[in-house]
C-alpha cells in the first residue's frame, strides 16, 4: 500500500523541474508492505446454571483475547483472535537519476546500486539495518507481494535514518502498488544553495497541493544534541566572525598608523613644502581607502576560492542524535517535497533512531548580499584605518622632517 495521505501524478515532477532555480527533479514512491497473519476462534457456549464466566483467548503480536460471554446462566469459553503483523517500508526510486533521490543519503556498503537501465528490473537495495534484521545478503531473494526480487546491494544511511528499508525501481514500485504514474515525493535539487527559498516559494505557488520541505526545514526538525551542536557552531562562528572583523580593522588601523610613522619624513616634507594638514590628511585617508578597496577585492577573491574549496571538499560535522523522528537531508539543496504527507513523505519517518550519529556536510554559500557586505566592511575598515592614520599625520609637525636629518 502507498504510504502517505495522497499521491501526485508523476507529471508533477516535470512541472517542478521547470520552476526557476530548479536544477533537477525526480519522483519517488513511498510504500509499506504490511502482512497480517492470524486467526479468529469462535467461543463455545455452554448452557449453564445461571453462572457467567468468560475467558479470553490469547494471541501473539497484536492478538487480543476475546471478551467473556454473558448471559443468564450460559457460559462462553475460548474465542478471540491471534494476529502477527509484519511490515517493512519500500521506496520506489528513479534509477535513471542516481545522484538524486532517497538513496543519495545512504552509502553502499555491499553489492552494487541500481543501473540506470534497471527501470523495471526485479532488483532491490536493502538498508543495512533491515538486512541484518532479516539476515539478508547480496544475492538473496526478497519476496514482495508474491514477486521475487534479487538483493543487489546493501546501503547504510548516512544521516542516522534511512529513507526506507527496501529500495526498488520506481516503475516496479508503481506496478506493485497499482499506482502507475503516481509518486508521493518529488526530490528537487536547486541550481544554487542560495536559491532554495526562492525555489520553495515558486513550487508552493505554481504546484498546488504540495508541501515543500527544504533541507533547512529538515534541520529544524532534528532535536537534541544536533540542535545544540548547530547552535554552538553558529554562535561560535558568529562571535568568531566579529572577533576576526574587529581584529582585521584594528590591524588595518595599526598598519596604517605604522605606515604613517614610517613615512613621517615624507609627510613632514610635504608640510614643509606648504601642504596644508587637511590635504595631507586627505592623502592618507585616500590611500587607506584605496588599500581598503584593493583588500576588499582580494578578500572577495580569496573568499570565493575558499567557499568553492569548502563546497568542493564538503567537510562534515558529526553530531550524536538522541531518539528522534527520522527523515533525510538534502545534499546542499532542497531535500524533498512531500506529496501532502509532509517531511518528504519518507517511509523512514516513523522510525526512531537511538544514539545514531548524523553527518552534516558543510557548504559555503555565497550571495550578492555577502559580497556587498564584504565590500562595505572593507571600505569601512579602510576609512577607520585611514582616519586613525590621518589623525596621526595631522599631528605631525613639519619641523620633524628637518629634525630627522640632524
Amino acid at each position, binding site marked *: 500500500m502507498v504510504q502517505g495521505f495522497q499521491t501526485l501524478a508523476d507529471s508533477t515532477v516535470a512541472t517542478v523541474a521547470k520552476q526557476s532555480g530548479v536544477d533537477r527533479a525526480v519522483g519517488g514512491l513511498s510504500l509499506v508492505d504490511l502482512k497480517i497473519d492470524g486467526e479468529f476462534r469462535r467461543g463455545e457456549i455452554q448452557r449453564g446454571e445461571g453462572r457467567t464466566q468468560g475467558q479470553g483467548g490469547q494471541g501473539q503480536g497484536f492478538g487480543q483475547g476475546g471478551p467473556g460471554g454473558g448471559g443468564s446462566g450460559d457460559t462462553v469459553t475460548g474465542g478471540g483472535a491471534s494476529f502477527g503483523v509484519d511490515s517493512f517500508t519500500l521506496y520506489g526510486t528513479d534509477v535513471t537519476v542516481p545522484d538524486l533521490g532517497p538513496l543519495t543519503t545512504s552509502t553502499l556498503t555491499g553489492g552494487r546500486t541500481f543501473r540506470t537501465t534497471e527501470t523495471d528490473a526485479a532488483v532491490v537495495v536493502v538498508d543495512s539495518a533491515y538486512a541484518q534484521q532479516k539476515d539478508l545478503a547480496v544475492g538473496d531473494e526478497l519476496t514482495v507481494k508474491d514477486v521475487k526480487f534479487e538483493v543487489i546491494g546493501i546501503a547504510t544511511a548516512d544521516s542516522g535514518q534511512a529513507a526506507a528499508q527496501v529500495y526498488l525501481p520506481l516503475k516496479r514500485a508503481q506496478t506493485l502498488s497499482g499506482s502507475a504514474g503516481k509518486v508521493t515525493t518529488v526530490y528537487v535539487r536547486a541550481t544554487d544553495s542560495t536559491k532554495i527559498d526562492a525555489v520553495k516559494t515558486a513550487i508552493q505557488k505554481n504546484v498546488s497541493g504540495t508541501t515543500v520541505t527544504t533541507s533547512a526545514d529538515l534541520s529544524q526538525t532534528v532535536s537534541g544534541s544536533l540542535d545544540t551542536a548547530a547552535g554552538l557552531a553558529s554562535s561560535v562562528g558568529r562571535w568568531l566572525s566579529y572577533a576576526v572583523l574587529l581584529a582585521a580593522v584594528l590591524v588595518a588601523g595599526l598598519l596604517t598608523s605604522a605606515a604613517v610613522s614610517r613615512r613621517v619624513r615624507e609627510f613632514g616634507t610635504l608640510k614643509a*613644502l606648504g*601642504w596644508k594638514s587637511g590635504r595631507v590628511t586627505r592623502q592618507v585617508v585616500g590611500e587607506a581607502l584605496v588599500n581598503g578597496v584593493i583588500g576588499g577585492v582580494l578578500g572577495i577573491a580569496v573568499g570565493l576560492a575558499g567557499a568553492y574549496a569548502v563546497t568542493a571538499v564538503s567537510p562534515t560535522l558529526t553530531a550524536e542524535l538522541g531518539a528522534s523522528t527520522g527523515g533525510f537531508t538534502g545534499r546542499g539543496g532542497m531535500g524533498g517535497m512531500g506529496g501532502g504527507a509532509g517531511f518528504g513523505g519518507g517511509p523512514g519517518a516513523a522510525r526512531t533512531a537511538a544514539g545514531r550519529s548524523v553527518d552534516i556536510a558543510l557548504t559555503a554559500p555565497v550571495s550578492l548580499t555577502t559580497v556587498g557586505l564584504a565590500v562595505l566592511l572593507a571600505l569601512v575598515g579602510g576609512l577607520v584605518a585611514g582616519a586613525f592614520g590621518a589623525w596621526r599625520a595631522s599631528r605631525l609637525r613639519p619641523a620633524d622632517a*628637518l629634525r630627522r636629518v640632524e
Partner: protein
Amino acid sequence: MYELIGVTKQYRRGQERVDALAGIDLKIAQGDRLVIQGPTGGGKSTLLQMLGGLDRPTAGSVFLDGTDLAGLSEGRLTAIRSRYIGFVFQSFNLIPTLTAQENVETALVPLGVKAAERRRRAAEALESVGLGERLGHLPSELSGGQQQRVAIARALVKRPQVLLADEPTGNLDETTRDEIADLLEGLWRERGLTFVMVTHDSSLARRAPRLATLRKGRVTVTENPKAAGTPAPAGKEG
C-alpha cells in the same frame, strides 16, 4: 629680508632644559648668501627651522619682510612656506613612489597650479638642474647627486625668494658635493635668491660671503670678502 630679534628656543629633554637658541639677533638681506656652521647640537637646524617658519621661537621674533613669523597662524605659515621658501634637505626627502617629475610637482600642488602647467614647470626645473633626461625615473633609480638635484629642482620650481638648505651635500661624495655646491651657487647668483645653508663642510663654508657660527645657542657672524658672489650686507653678532 630677515631680521631675528632675541630669538630663543628651549627644549625639554627629559628633566633637562636645552637652550638650542639663546637670544639670537641676526639680519639677512635680500639676495644674501649665508652659511651656518657649528658643532652638532649647536642649534643650526633649529635656526634654519625658525627662518623657514617650520618652528616657533620660545621667545623673540623672526621677521620676514616685516612680518613676524612667530605670531602667525599655522595656516599663514603654511602659505608663506608654499610661496616664498624653498627647502633642500640632507637626505633629499624625495617621495620614493613618485617619479622625479612628480616629486618636483609636489611643490606646486599647494599653489593650486593646474596639472599640465605643473608638469611643464617641473620638467623645466629638472632641465635647469641637468636632469631633463630623467623625468620619469624613480628616486631609487637615481644616484645621490641626481636625487639632490631633483630636490633642488623641487625647491626652486615655485620660484621662491628664499632657499634654505640643511646639509645639502652631507650625503654626497666629494666630487658630487662640489657639483651640487656649484649648482646652488649658480642658481643663487642667477635668480637673486636669499640663500641660507647649514653645513659642516669647511670647504663650502669658505666659499660663502658670510659665515654664521653657532655655538651653545649663540651666533657669531663673520664676513668673507674673498668669497665669490654678491657682497653681503653687514650682520651683527647675537
